């Protein structure tokens, strides 16, 4: 390589780095706004100081936002933890069968499952509401299925089946067939093979599914708005209500938005690697 080409390469690298850094600033702009505004006292709410750092830093907005949002955060925990665990169980069983214990028509079935991943949930929402209302009446449990957390968990687990099945299936495909075959020759049945051969190596896929489902359950707004009531509103709905009220100052809105995002941000930071893999699975790539 000539000296000119080498220098041109270095210049190009410099330009790339510069552009990437400029875009980092653009990407972080909303975060700056969230943080800075959330620490401002009401006296600094004037538009002329919109982009300034707070002159006096205060946690007042955070305190109020926490008080308003806490019931929603708790509801979201009750929603997202059991929801993601159940999704994981179903996804793992389906993925195992569809990759290692296939039956005639398994491919067609898998395609039919996958479509469930892409349907706009608006298309099932009205019947879903009617069904959950019906279940309330049938069981005599008011506010459990429709208007309660259990109904919301049910919806998320069912509509999470496609993506969770996909993630586990694509992961289990990489387990050598010989391992399954050897277990079969040893006389182990399907469940036994699952328990002693497949499940012990499922760790990474479990992590991906839990993260993926936890994040989507935590961030969901559509199902929550259609299926829950004031007692069971999760974080997103409460956050929208807090921010939608004209009287709520920006500082509280921003603090509430950060509070609502902390759990998924922690997951993203700590388990980012698995988060990435879940995203890739969403692109139908193994």
């Amino acid at each position, binding site marked *: 390589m000539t000296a000119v080409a080498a220098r041109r390469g270095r210049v190009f690298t410099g330009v790339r780095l510069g552009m990437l850094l400029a875009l980092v600033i653009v*990407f972080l702009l909303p975060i700056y706004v969230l943080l800075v505004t959330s620490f401002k006292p009401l006296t600094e709410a004037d538009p002329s100081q919109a*982009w300034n750092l707070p002159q006096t830093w205060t946690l007042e907005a955070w305190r109020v936002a926490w008080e308003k949002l806490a019931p929603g955060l708790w509801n979201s925990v009750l929603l997202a933890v059991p929801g993601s665990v159940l999704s994981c169980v179903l996804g793992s069983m389906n993925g195992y069968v569809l990759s290692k*214990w296939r039956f005639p028509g398994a491919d067609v079935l898998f395609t039919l499952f996958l479509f469930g991943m892409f349907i706009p949930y*608006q298309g099932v929402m009205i019947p879903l509401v009617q069904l959950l209302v019906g279940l309330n009446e049938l069981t005599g449990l008011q506010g459990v299925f429709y208007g309660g957390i259990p109904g919301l968990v049910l919806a998320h687990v069912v509509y999470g089946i496609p993506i969770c099945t996909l993630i586990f299936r694509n992961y289990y495909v990489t387990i050598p067939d010989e391992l399954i075959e050897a277990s079969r020759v040893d006389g182990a049945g399907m469940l036994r093979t699952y328990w002693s051969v497949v499940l012990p190596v499922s760790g990474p896929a479990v992590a991906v599914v839990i993260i993926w489902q936890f*994040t989507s359950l935590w961030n969901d707004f559509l199902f929550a708005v259609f299926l829950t009531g004031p007692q069971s509103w999760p974080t997103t709905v409460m956050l929208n209500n807090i921010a939608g009220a004209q009287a709520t100052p920006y500082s509280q*809105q921003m603090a509430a*938005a950060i509070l609502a995002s902390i759990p998924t941000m922690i997951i993203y930071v700590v388990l980012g690697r698995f988060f990435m893999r879940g995203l890739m699975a969403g692109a139908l790539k193994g």
Partner: protein
Amino acid sequence: MRRVRTWLPGLLLVAPSIVLIGVFVYGMLGWNFRLAMTDKHDEVSEGKFVGLENFLGIWDLPRWHISVNHAIMFTVVFVLGALVLGWFLAFLMEKGIRGEGSFRAIYLFPMAISFVATGIVWRWLMNSGMGERAVGFNRLFDAIGLPQWQWFRDPDWGMAAMALPAIWQMSGYVMALFLAGFRGVPEELREAARVDGCNEWGVYRHVVLPLLRPVTLSALIILGHISLKVFDLIVAVSGKQIITDVPAVFMWVAVFDSHDPAKGATIASYIVLSVAIFVIPYLIWSVRKERRS
């Protein structure tokens, strides 16, 4: 018989999911279409079968035209914007750069945040207040001498502004897809093209770009189906205002404010159809492709 005994347990294990998907996905889609073909325009009436009357009648509503046009503009700006920005980010990084891990983490993190939280910040950023009352971008633009704008309240281009937070949130994902695509191009192929006398642009144009086609298609499908059903973001930024109405918000209003199940189901059906029309061929194509390999 022996064969049956080998696959039957598997089928039984999947059976609960088959039933659930059958009822909750296909059963309810069918139920929704059925409801859209009745005249159940209030909560109590039985609903007589009226065929496609609702599907045709909705085109007489000005609000429907508005919401469809909005969805189209949003989709075009969002999909193209996220695709181009995501591709550009991947392009800048594909040959490796110092701190790549940190860059990737920063571009990708908006995905971990809910559209509702995103909407709250962007509503502030895109506040339409001007002059003394300006906050957000307008205040910033004013300070550096750029013209102020109505943003999502602009009667003509408002939905293009509405796509900005969605681009912010999703372009990191597109970047990750493209980065995986770039890295999947074998170095030998690039080298071979160089030996054949291609310059770097030629290598890119004739070797890399064709191999990125499947990734581009995946990204298009994912962005497109997010876009056509967009709901959270619109509600968080501007609520139920007509100025930013889209079919998903219109449907919400039809169900909860107008209490018109048949109308809600009709809008929902159109949303499903608009997504199904390109997702079904894509799914069939990708499952077939996988089976071949």
